């Protein structure tokens, strides 16, 4: 099945996510300076560098891959994003069939986001990474329902994540460090939503590059 997403694809995704975070590191930190504490870029970059170092030994399965990714993020990032992104990946692995089609991958990503919500208790509109992830998942499911393969679903999800990211700008934060700012948090994009948009964009790019 040409739609099948392999372990190699997923490893490529994680590498691409690292590269994108490195590339946008200062931007993520600048977003976090405005409404947080100016470390989201370095936090994510540090964690994903550690992840990529671990991937020197190629994982045998998606389950192994995401366990490594999740554990490494939890143990090397710290801050709010460490446990949250860590949980995201830790929940993806067990939910994934190998190889996975668009439906299976969508379900696994949803399990990841549900893990984030369970840990962080964020609701939609709280101005967090969840506000990029949830629209992405919805777009994914819609695309699959309209017959899209993983590549198509990922493209739709990436676009929705970016819209979700941008839509965090007017919101008043109610979770995380930005919530302390009250009304003053409005007018700025949430850094975690921005990194989550990169997460879906790199997945889409990876699947597209695969052809």
């Amino acid at each position, binding site marked *: 099945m040409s739609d099948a997403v392999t372990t190699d694809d997923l490893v490529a995704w994680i590498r691409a996510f690292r590269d994108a975070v490195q590339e946008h590191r200062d931007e993520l930190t600048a977003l976090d300076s405005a409404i947080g*504490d100016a470390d989201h870029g370095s936090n994510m970059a540090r964690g994903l560098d550690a992840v990529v170092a671990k991937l020197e030994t190629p994982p045998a399965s998606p389950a192994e891959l995401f366990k490594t990714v999740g554990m490494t993020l939890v143990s090397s990032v710290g801050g709010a994003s460490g446990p949250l992104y860590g949980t995201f990946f830790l929940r993806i692995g067990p939910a994934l069939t190998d190889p996975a089609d668009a439906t299976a991958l969508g379900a696994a990503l949803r399990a990841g986001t549900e893990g984030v919500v369970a840990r962080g208790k964020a609701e939609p509109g709280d101005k967090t990474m969840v506000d990029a992830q949830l629209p992405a998942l919805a777009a994914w499911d819609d695309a699959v329902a309209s017959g899209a393969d993983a590549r198509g679903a990922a493209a739709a999800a990436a676009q929705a994540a970016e819209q979700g990211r941008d839509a965090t700008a007017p919101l008043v934060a109610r979770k995380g460090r930005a919530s302390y700012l009250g009304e003053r948090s409005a007018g700025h994009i949430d850094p975690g939503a921005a990194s989550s948009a990169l997460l879906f964009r790199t997945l889409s790019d990876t699947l597209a590059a695969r052809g």
Partner: protein
Amino acid sequence: MKKFVNDPADVLAEALRGIHAAHPELRIDTENRVILRGEPTREGKVALVSGGGSGHEPMHGGFVGRGMLDAAAAGEVFTSPTPDQVLAATQAVDSGAGVLHIVKNYTGDVLNFEMAAELAAAEGVRVESVVVADDVAVQDSTWTAGRRGTGTTVILEKIVGALAEEGADLDAVAALARRVSEAGRSMGVALTSCTVPAVGHPTFELPDDEMEVGVGIHGEPGRTRVKLASAHEIAKLMVDPIVHDFGEPVGPAIVLLSGLGGTPLIEQYLLYGEIAPLLAEAGVDVQRVLIGDYITSLDMAGASLTVVKADDEFLRLWDAPVVTPGLRWGA
């Protein structure tokens, strides 16, 4: 950026190296970035573990020692430590009597300590946690992640550390910790931003004639930005919300006025000269006071005021001996 650093990525590891060189009486777990007392925990003594992002020195590593903490996990600058670090600290100091986690109320700290506590429990260590949330600048805690934890943490670590030293059990230690936590209120003001080494420029821009009222210790912007005011007016901006938040008459209290890292002691004393009469007027009966850099925000010019309503037990334990790099008396 004008700092004593080499590669900004190495700040934490290299600072730990300096702490190790300066304090042979402490142990440093370099791999896990944990600062520990030199001696293992006395049999039967409850151990106190705290930690958080770095950049707030002497908190927490500077409060490790007899009468205060048993270990502190040091996260990256302004980033809470990971569960692994906290777990390593917890396991290293548990004597079997259990461990109290002292956590400041930030999402990152809460989540990472929570995961560490779960892992420790799985390893058979009894862990209780207290979450300090004393920053009155965060007004509407229903709609936020709750109040931030700031200066009360220092006072709590001292008082509860003394009780643990006396041999109280984990429940008693945790109960006291919660009592101290609930008795504390803090408020901070920043005159300048801080500069995170890995970023290299100030976290926020603050015009020459403005200041941030209610700033967080991570250099998060405060609740309001107002015109730069005199020390007299700033004192009011700090005292009023604290007193108001207590609601009830405060009575005897322990007070901490901490510089945020870039404010010299002469200014801190001047400011306290304005704060003291305001506290007295408001019925705060200051029994003990600390002034200096105890909970900082890198090189930020500013100060935070903490008032802990204190009963006789708090005062007795406050006065008990303490021997740490950052706080020392009675021995």
